[in-house]
């Protein structure tokens, strides 16, 4: 029996397909359409899922949309009326898209798949988030916390999961939203909303949270983590272009211009920015102010999330916590929740944002509606498309790119490790691409974490990245506790790079390129069972270098989605200064690297 989950029309559209309750394919549309955060109907992702299963749309038994469209429409109408006449533009633009597409999602699914209307179901936005976390977790019983920008009306919920049953017990409603509060600061700090939130998190350790009192003026928080925003500081509830109001600007000063390069006294002036400006100190001071604002909003968000989680723990008495929603991608806050909220274990699946709603909808349909017992656990993230060696070779031949095919994994791993140990930056493209926004060793750019200068080298070679762009340590799971905080590194979400752990002082000097300015690392633990080839690569790198870690960053250029196909990987390779590209068993090298390695 096939169950298809679909999410679209908000942030990241996606599709996920279950066969008899087991996930067989899941992907976000952006990987196929090449539009970052593509929110349109995910026809390519659906086509991929069907291809993976070897079926046609008609063979889908249940198609489940991740939210209730009419409830969301009601929220937009109510907000437009409540914010009369300021919301006139929001109303006008929203009606154009809603009347054209969004209201007719049922017909769209019926026509696209060729299924009858009784096979189309609708979950709820936060229920889908909750299901995506709990029903993919290893827990039989768990508390659930979902926090995002907004779903239909809810912006945060908590509840409990037992077996196949999920109960949402409480919610916070729009416009009071932790996700939208963070997004307002994302926009204020010059980044794109729904894309640059992780940059705010990366920028925060460069600052001091000296403005937390000002941030607290924007949000009133109860002891149980419930909260209400002072909406006079925001405009997202009546504007489709602005997220914060003039009053916000009066409180925090002028917003950071998006094109302003980020550097402080701590980061220094990165060489890839060009020539050091004459007024470096002045610009660095200005950036320091913005870094302090980033640190302040991050500190307050962490505080509220810990209060929320602690409140949920007290109310449910449970020791496991499942989290989902875009805010659950805040890996720094996740680690604080583990340490301070009273839970023993945490689970977050890799596509915690809206893309993951597709998975949640499918799991909700299979278990909660159809009553089937649980047998699936998300133990790895490799649910995307893959490309055969023959297709790769054909493509490289067709574009006249020199390459060599390596027929043994030993030679492949040794060649790659040798290149890494000699300071090369390697594009590593293997098997099925990852589910969710993180590159976890199948679509990654790798480098040697021992070299402090590697941060700057990677930033220089993979152009235009900001100095706070995170470089993650991929570490052998069985060795993680030697280098990172033991408690955090043992948690499931570290498989998916969703928690930040302190790097042990003795280890920090050994892996400076993946140790953030605050002495932490957003680690990915790699086990043999989840990714044998990547595990093998890191093991061999340890033999060559003495550290069981490689530097991992996503395989894309700034502003582009992570690569899917060999063609996209090669295009990224050619447009950057990467030294070597490994496409399955096929190795492509840049001329100068070939000359050096001879």
């Amino acid at each position, binding site marked *: 029996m096939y169950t298809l989950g679909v999410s679209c029309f908000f942030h990241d559209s996606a599709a996920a397909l279950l066969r008899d309750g087991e996930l067989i394919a899941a992907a976000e549309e952006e990987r196929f359409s090449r539009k970052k955060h593509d929110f349109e109907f995910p026809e390519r992702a659906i086509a991929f899922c069907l291809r993976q299963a070897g079926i046609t749309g008609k063979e889908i038994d249940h198609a489940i949309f991740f939210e*209730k*469209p*009419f*409830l969301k429409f*009601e929220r937009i*109408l*109510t*907000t*437009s*009326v*409540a*914010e*009369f*006449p300021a919301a*006139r533009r929001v*109303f*006008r633009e929203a*009606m*154009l898209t809603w009347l054209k597409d969004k209201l007719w999602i*049922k017909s769209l699914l019926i026509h696209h798949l060729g299924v009858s209307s*009784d096979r*189309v*179901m*609708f979950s709820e936005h936060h229920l889908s988030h909750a299901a995506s976390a709990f029903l993919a977790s290893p827990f039989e019983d768990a508390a659930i916390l979902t926090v995002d920008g907004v779903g239909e009306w809810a912006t945060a*919920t*908590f*509840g409990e999961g037992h077996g196949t049953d999920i*109960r*949402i*017990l*409480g*919610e*916070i*409603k*729009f*416009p*009071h939203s932790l996700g939208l509060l963070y997004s307002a600061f994302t926009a204020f700090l010059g980044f794109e909303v729904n894309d640059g939130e992780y940059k705010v998190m990366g920028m925060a350790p460069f600052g001091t949270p000296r403005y937390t009192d000002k941030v607290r003026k924007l949000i*009133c*928080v*109860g002891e*149980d983590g*419930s*909260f*209400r925003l002072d*909406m006079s500081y925001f405009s997202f*509830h009546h504007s489709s272009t602005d997220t914060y109001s003039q009053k916000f600007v009066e409180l925090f000063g002028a917003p950071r211009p998006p094109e302003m390069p980020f550097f402080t006294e701590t980061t220094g002036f990165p060489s890839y920015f060009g020539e050091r400006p004459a007024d470096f100190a002045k610009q660095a001071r200005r950036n320091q102010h913005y870094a302090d604002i980033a640190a302040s909003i991050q500190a307050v968000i962490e505080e509220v999330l810990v209060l929320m989680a602690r409140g949920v723990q007290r109310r449910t008495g449970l020791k496991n916590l499942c989290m989902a929603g875009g805010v659950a991608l805040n890996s720094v806050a996740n680690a604080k929740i583990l340490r301070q909220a009273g839970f023993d274990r945490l689970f977050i699946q890799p596509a915690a944002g809206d893309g993951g709603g597709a998975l949640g909808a499918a799991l*909700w*349909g299979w278990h*909660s*509606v159809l009553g089937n017992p649980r047998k699936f656990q998300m133990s790895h993230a490799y649910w995307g498309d893959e490309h055969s060696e023959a297709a790769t070779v054909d493509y490289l031949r067709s574009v006249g790119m020199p390459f060599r095919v390596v027929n043994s994994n030993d030679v492949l791993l040794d060649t790659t490790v040798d290149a890494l140990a000699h300071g090369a930056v390697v594009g590593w493209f293997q098997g099925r691409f990852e589910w969710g926004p993180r590159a976890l060793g199948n679509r990654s750019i790798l480098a040697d974490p021992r070299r402090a200068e590697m941060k700057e080298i990677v930033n220089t070679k993979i152009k235009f990245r900001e100095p706070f762009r995170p470089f993650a340590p991929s570490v052998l799971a069985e060795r993680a506790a030697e280098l990172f905080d033991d408690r955090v590194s043992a948690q499931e979400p570290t498989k998916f790079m969703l928690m930040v752990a302190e790097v042990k002082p003795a280890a920090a000097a050994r892996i400076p390129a993946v140790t953030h300015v605050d002495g932490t690392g957003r680690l990915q633990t790699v086990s043999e069972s989840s990714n044998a080839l990547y595990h093998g690569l890191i093991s061999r790198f340890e033999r060559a270098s003495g550290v069981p870690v490689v530097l991992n960053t996503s395989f894309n250029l700034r502003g582009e989605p992570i690569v899917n196909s060999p063609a996209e990987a090669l295009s990224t390779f050619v447009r950057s200064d990467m030294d070597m590209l490994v496409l399955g068993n096929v190795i492509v090298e840049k001329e100068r690297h070939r000359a050096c390695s001879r």
Partner: protein
Amino acid sequence: MEWSRVGRLGGQRVSTGILRSASLAGFFRELRRAGKRIGEAQARALMSAFYFVVLGPVFFVGIRRRDPLDLNSVAPPAWREVHYRCAADHKHQQY
């Protein structure tokens, strides 16, 4: 591409034919674009009129005092209780 268009139109594979078909296709493309722009402008005007004429009175009569977005509350913040809905009961509902 232009050659095949000429072929489909039954024209000759001569440069004048290509030009004619290219300019015709271009003309229709522009016409479609203009039609779309006019349609969207009309839809926007209609929606704006609807907003002020229909939703405006709704605001003044009902919504203003109800504060559905909880903008003016002075009570301490609290989680809103969610009533349990059996999955099987609302599985087909879009609301």
